[in-house]
């Protein structure tokens, strides 16, 4: 006889038991619900970090990027972007780039586009939440593309480079979304239509997404005709559509038809690190394609294998953290963080804002060898403040090479602004136009060209440039301010900026060239000319000091002494040194006692260290006399200017 315990249970009893067991596991359900939100958590986390990084850390870079771009409404601006496939991405990118005028706004837009990309990728590939981190592969690669640019921003032929790849990938992801939702039997048609419509819009990115469509077909289609047919259609259209459009467009070199919309860096081997993020970007959708699932399959996984998912979650997360860690490493190592680059950007902005004090203050904090451009900005600030003669040698000097793939030229980095401020309007104009021809018109070039035209009296030409700037979103007010001077040139004479520049515009015309060397040209020019204009005299004397040109110094020094009641410290330092070197009697020179005493100390220190080389003496003299012309004269040598 069977006991009550061993009595088999009825079906309804079993069901009730199962129900009770399920009710006893609320924590497991809760965990599953949390899992579903993981991709959102990753996305928000990434967006927050990226936003802060861009808006705060890259603020100066974004501001300058906006100045080195241009967007105008109207058909004349749009027309060149219709000349090549993929250039419409740049048109849209240019529109977005203008919002970097407020870095927090432009960065916000960029990050928002990345979030949209994540959403589009999820729509396209439908991966399970446990693989959520893989959705960040593409945005991290895009961030690396944007943050690795560095000095290339001065050579970029795209107006909207920082947005182009993002917009291209977004279009690619959206096309994959549409593919996903297309009825299966019509997907080959979508592939064809997308290639025909998408290639002119997005160039290479259309090819990329079409490639992924064929991959998805191979992986997911059940019918062999779809599994083979779609890739064949894809390959055919990927091969032929660019060739077809080569004969429609008249501006694409045949060798580039499959790369339309991608940047063309000049030195492929040296710039490998700039290409690397693009490579990652292209392959970022591969894991998504391999992990993609159908809706039914996703639901099944959620319902049935809860236990398995929860149990294996740490393994999955570990794999993805490793993956993301690698990408983050890529992003961080490509996060262009060069101190001198940042300093140059900041000084350029401060100079435009006429914040000379801040430039001088920042220059005191340099702790590594500056670039020549930094030194020039510092000297310009001192000159504008009338302090060059007293302070220009009190700073770290040098000529560090820019951290760039190529030998950078100052004419492209900040030299134009130097020429403008030293009244070399034709040279400033020239380099603006040269760069405008090569890289396209930019806000910065238009501003400088309009000022050059305005200051040199070419009012019609100034009007042309200012009318263009008037059409921009954020520079219209500045343009209107300058147009006042065009309408009433008399007002210009009262403008403070003009008053510090125009007095230097007193040289005669001649045929000349700067050999692409801004600083050398300015030094030689001011060193070899002289006028009675006080500002010009300051400039000429300081250049003579930098050139260490004793014969040019003396006549200038004496002329200066005649017309000024006070002689700045560095001029006195030069005078007493040169008198000593040429064995003149310094007592007739207007040298302060402090300077005399200090020079005596200099001589004493020298005599106390006989037989030592310059290298051995440098640290000692830098600590004692690093803020004098004497230190500059003896120890700052062989500085190369670019």
């Amino acid at each position: 006889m069977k006991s009550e315990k061993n009595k088999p249970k009825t079906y309804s009893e079993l069901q009730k038991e199962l129900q009770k067991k399920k009710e006893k596991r609320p924590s497991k359900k809760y965990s599953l619900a949390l899992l579903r939100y993981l991709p959102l958590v990753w996305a928000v986390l990434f967006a927050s970090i990226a936003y802060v990084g861009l808006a705060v850390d890259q603020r100066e870079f974004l501001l300058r990027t906006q100045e080195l771009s241009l967007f105008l409404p109207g058909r004349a601006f749009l027309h060149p972007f219709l000349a090549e496939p993929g250039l419409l991405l740049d048109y849209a990118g240019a529109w977005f780039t203008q919002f970097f005028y407020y870095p927090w706004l432009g960065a916000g837009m960029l990050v928002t586009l990345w979030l949209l990309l994540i959403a589009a990728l999820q729509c396209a590939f439908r991966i399970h939440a446990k693989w959520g981190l893989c959705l960040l592969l593409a945005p991290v690669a895009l961030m690396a593309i944007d943050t690795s640019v560095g000095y290339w921003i001065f050579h970029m032929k795209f107006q909207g480079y920082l947005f182009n790849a993002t917009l291209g990938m977004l279009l690619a992801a959206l096309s994959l979304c549409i593919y996903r939702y297309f009825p299966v039997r019509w997907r080959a048609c979508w592939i064809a239509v997308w290639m025909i419509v998408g290639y002119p819009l997005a160039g290479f990115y259309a090819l990329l997404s079409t490639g992924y469509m064929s991959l998805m077909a191979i992986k997911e289609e059940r019918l062999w005709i779809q599994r083979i047919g779609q890739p064949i259609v894809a390959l055919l259209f990927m091969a032929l559509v660019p060739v077809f459009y080569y004969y429609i467009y008249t501006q694409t070199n045949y060798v580039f038809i499959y790369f339309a919309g991608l940047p063309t860096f000049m030195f492929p081997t040296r710039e490998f690190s700039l290409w690397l993020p693009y490579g990652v970007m292209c392959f970022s959708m591969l894991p998504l394609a391999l992990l993609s699932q159908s809706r039914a399959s996703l639901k099944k996984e959620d319902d049935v294998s809860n236990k398995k998912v929860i149990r294996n979650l740490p393994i999955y997360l570990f794999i993805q953290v490793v993956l993301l860690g690698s990408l983050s490493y890529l992003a961080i190592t490509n996060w262009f963080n060069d101190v001198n680059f940042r300093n140059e950007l900041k000084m350029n902005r401060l100079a435009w804002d006429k914040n000379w004090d801040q430039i001088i203050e920042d220059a005191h904090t340099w702790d590594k060898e500056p670039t020549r451009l930094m030194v020039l900005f510092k000297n310009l600030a001192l000159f504008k403040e009338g302090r060059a003669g007293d302070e220009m040698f009190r700073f770290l000097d040098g000529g560090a090479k820019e951290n760039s793939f190529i030998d950078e030229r100052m004419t492209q980095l900040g030299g134009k602004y130097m020429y403008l401020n030293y009244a070399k309007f034709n040279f400033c104009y020239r380099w603006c136009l040269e760069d405008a021809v090569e890289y396209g018109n930019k806000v910065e070039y238009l501003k400088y060209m309009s000022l050059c035209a305005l200051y040199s009296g070419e009012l019609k030409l100034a009007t042309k440039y200012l009318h263009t700037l008037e059409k921009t979103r954020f520079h219209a007010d500045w343009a209107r301010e300058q147009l006042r001077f065009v309408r009433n040139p008399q007002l210009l004479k009262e403008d403070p900026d003009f008053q510090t520049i125009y007095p230097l515009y007193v040289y005669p015309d001649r045929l000349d060239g700067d050999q692409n060397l801004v600083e050398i040209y300015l030094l030689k020019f001011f060193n070899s000319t002289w006028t009675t204009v006080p500002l010009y005299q300051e400039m000429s004397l300081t250049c003579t000091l930098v050139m260490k040109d004793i014969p040019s110094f003396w006549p200038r020094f004496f002329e200066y002494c005649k017309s000024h009641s006070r002689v700045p410290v560095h001029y006195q330092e030069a005078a007493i040194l040169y008198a000593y070197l040429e064995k003149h009697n310094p007592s007739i020179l207007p040298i302060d006692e402090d300077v005399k005493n200090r020079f005596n100390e200099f001589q004493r220190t020298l005599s106390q260290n006989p037989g030592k080389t310059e290298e051995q003496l440098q640290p000692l003299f830098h600590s004692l006399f690093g803020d004098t012309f004497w230190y500059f004269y003896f120890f700052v040598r062989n500085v190369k200017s670019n």
Partner: protein
Amino acid sequence: MKKIFFFLPVLCALFLLASCSSEVPNNFTEVQRTPQIYPDYLGITIPPNIAPLTFRVLEDGEDYVTRYTYKGGELVVGGKDCIPSIDDWRAMLQAAKGSALQIDVFVKTVKGWVKYKSFEQMVAPEPIDEYLSYRLIAPSYVSYEHLTINQRNLTNFDETEIYNNMLLSTEENGQCINCHSYQNYSTKNMQFHARQTLGGTMIVVDGKPVKYDLKTDSTISGGVYPAWHPTQKLIAYSVNSTGQAFHTRSPEKIEVQDRASDLIVFDIERDMIIPVSTDPNQYEIFPSWSPDGNTLYFCSAYYDMSDTVGTHQGDRLQMDAYQKFKYDLWRIPYNPSTKTFGKKEKVIDAAAIGKSITLPRVSPDGKYLLFTMGDYGCFHIWHKSSDLYLLDLATGKFRKLENVNSPDVESYHTWSSNGRWIVFSSRREDGSYTRSYFAYFDKQHKAHRPFVLPQAYPEHNHDRYTSYNIPEFMKEPVTISPQQFASALKAEPIKAKYQSR
């Protein structure tokens, strides 16, 4: 509800359209001056087949109406930008051929409508050649990027590319293109140069493009400034060694100088270069044939090169002497049957009057020669002193071309095939960006007030940041595609041979 959102924008658009009048107001106040418009199309003479001359009314107002009154009709256009439809415009010009259009501009101000003083545009009986080609290039110094040779249909606004240098340029290997030229206004025989990457001279003969290398060991360079013989398969060229320097202060910014230049002729049928004038102390440049093909005109400056050739000091001396280079007008007779040249003679001694002549162009009837004259040098597009002059070939007297010149640059000019229209380059608008202007040359041999190339919308000239370089009339468009030219440029060039004298 959804229908409201659909129709609302449509209604708004209709409202906006309605708010731009195209009816002439009945009540208005008269203003005793002509309106300010851009471009300035007041008092000009236009061909009967030109595209609409769109303009913007620069007067402040809320609404604008422009009325064209002509023999037998009236055309009314609304809007601050006066953009007549092409069909209406054509019909009007056909009806008004040989007579004047009277244009009235009405502007609605806060005080009501005002009517400005009428102005006229004469419609000439003679048409203009239908096509114009030009190179679009920034007024740049050394660098170049996108360069195109374009053709524009002058009866409408269609502009297409004949060739685009980006078809063969890469980042490291650019290609410059220049000097497009046609035989007798026909595009079946034409040429242009490509420099640097895959460089050569593209010569189209009977519609077939072939690439040539015109550089020989006996010439200074490959062919530069071209001039097709009107009937023979022969192109005259200058060969030049050119340099440029930059003004430190002058608004004329760039000085282009030849270090050396000579004249040659390229016989296409024999692939043969024949020297014409190669005096080392003479700088021969800008060949141009008479319409009968019996005379070759050119310009030449004298500079004693002894002891300075190839030295740095010599280069500097020559550069500093840039204002001393004065080009005179010369001609040399040519025998088409023997293909030989006679003795050259000076036509105008410009140096003697302290001037310099460039770009001679003989009118299709052979009676006149149009040239540019400035204070010095040969690259007058950068010289504000340069103006257009007309030489009467029968009397030998020349005069400044009335009504045409401005205080700024006038240069590169050419005649239409019927000799009634002149196109020339001018920088009068802003001093830097060259635009193409047309002037009527009537049967009394007087030039009329010029007008700028009309555009689909008036602001186009402000928006365009390239110059219109080397405007040349054509009777028909170039039909070879840019890709075909690119393909031909990739081919190995035919090497020209040099025939010594």
